[in-house]
């Protein structure tokens, strides 16, 4: 485990420098004659951010503001129009196995069993590893999320929560040091969601990873994060505030609501979200 050999905290893991993304519309034949010149859309603009190693960061903002866009840029799935993404001191050029991505809709391949889904990731990232090695590693990660018994089941036989656990196991199996999650629990019922939140926390504690979590739930952000990033409404969304959550861990989800510190931050977040959402609703 090489990443444990350098447990220097407070070193920057991820840095975003003047990051911007403009979506250019494809020019169709008839657009040539049309008077509308609006052929591009600036989703995010001038994003500057520093994230320390092994911290848990949540990004929150009104829907449609560009959270997914930002995460895709960090994952290397899309190229920024301007600015830089620096990881461990180096500007990234594309996706890489140092980052594990977890999507809202689980994104499991339906023609593969749960273990095969993980093996696909392992085979792709570690082509030099032998079949038995890959299999053993896949089983270990399934066990970590408590699903080794479901290893030969197909995704359609699993509940939403189980599918997301497989997706988490897949993302972790390639041993990334950063987990990028796009509203991973948004589609789950409340009980499953809190169960998976706890599981994520324990994985985060054990695996020493930096987590960037996109969420629209203020409670989720408060319960899990060290730092909460607030985004303004789009278009040309940017970071409007960074809030440190200095609540003690482990956080007790039953009694945390009585903590005045918790309530203070929560109110601040609610105010911000209300203001930004109003901005969105009044424009459209």
């Amino acid at each position, binding site marked *: 485990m090489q990443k444990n050999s350098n447990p220097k905290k407070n070193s920057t893991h991820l840095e975003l420098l003047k990051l911007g993304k403009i979506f250019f519309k494809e020019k169709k034949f008839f657009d040539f004659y049309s008077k509308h010149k609006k052929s591009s859309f600036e989703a995010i603009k001038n994003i500057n951010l520093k994230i320390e190693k092994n911290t848990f960061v949540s990004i929150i903002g009104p829907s449609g503001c560009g959270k997914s866009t930002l995460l895709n840029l960090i*994952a290397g799935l899309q190229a920024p129009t301007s600015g830089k993404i620096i990881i461990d001191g180096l500007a990234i050029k594309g*996706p890489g*196995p140092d980052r594990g*991505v977890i*999507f809202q809709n689980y*994104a499991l*391949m339906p*023609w593969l069993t749960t273990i095969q889904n993980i093996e696909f990731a392992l085979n*792709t990232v570690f082509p030099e590893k032998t079949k038995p090695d890959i299999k053993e590693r896949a089983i270990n990660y399934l066990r970590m999320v408590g699903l080794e018994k479901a290893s030969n089941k197909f995704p*359609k036989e699993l509940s939403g929560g189980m599918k997301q656990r497989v997706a988490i196991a897949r993302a972790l199996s390639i041993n990334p040091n950063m987990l990028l999650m796009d509203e991973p629990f948004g589609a789950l019922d409340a009980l499953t969601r809190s169960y998976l939140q706890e599981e994520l926390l324990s994985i985060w504690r054990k695996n020493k990873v930096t987590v960037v979590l996109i969420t629209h739930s203020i409670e989720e952000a408060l319960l899990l994060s060290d730092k909460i990033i607030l985004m303004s409404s789009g278009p040309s969304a940017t970071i409007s505030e960074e809030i440190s959550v200095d609540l003690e861990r482990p956080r007790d989800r039953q009694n945390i609501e009585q903590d005045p510190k918790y309530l203070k931050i929560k109110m601040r977040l609610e105010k911000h979200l209300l203001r930004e959402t109003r901005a969105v609703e009044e424009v459209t």
Partner: protein
Amino acid sequence: MNKVISKRLTFVVTILSLLIFIIFWQIIAQQGLLVKNFPGSYKTINALIWWVSDPFFDNGPNDLGIGFNLLISLRRVLIGYSLAVLVAIPLGVLMGMSKLAQSSLNPYVQLLKPVSPLAWLPVGLFVFRNSEITGIFVIFITSIWPTLINTAFGVASINPDYLRVSKSLGASKSITIRRVILPAIMPNILAGMRISMGTAWLVIVAAEMLLGTGIGYFIWNEWNNLSLENIFVAIIIIGFTGFILDQFFGFLQDKFDYSI
């Protein structure tokens, strides 16, 4: 309990309707209600039994057992169809993945797709000077479009999440095609292959009337013999074979149905 009864009921109803049909057919034919000398069900069933009980005899090209004729047709369809699928799938993937390939190939596809494949028959005869190869060629042209179009559509409408997973892992283009795109579009490919097979089986009968040998030629030959009951025998056998082929693809489609 209810399900068992309804299943048995549908079986009984099916048999009953078949019996009623056969009886009416016989009555109508016997009374000469349609035209004179129209073969009744009794004569047709007897002919069917005669042909099926000895399907493999060979007394020259105009007196061939129906089993041989069926095998000749199936062989032409299978060769032409397999070649078409081998061309259509890679070409469809290419068209689905690349805008350039799409815009350069699509005009030909759109122009040629609505043309009856029989129009290619003289072209085939002129080029190949061989009726066997021409038959295969016509089936090839017939089979290519549905599989090609379905494959291209499948690639273009693939769930972007799968591609994002693949990309985020740093998978190469070749791994993405083989391990993500092809399995993801299997339902589309099979749907296309099913339509291709259905059309190929329709077209082979018509093509063979002009080519000699095969089940289509059998029909043409029996028309020259004015033996309508033998034509009905061929229709029944063609229909049954087409049904089996279609069921086979239905079975494959169920196997590759990923939906919940």
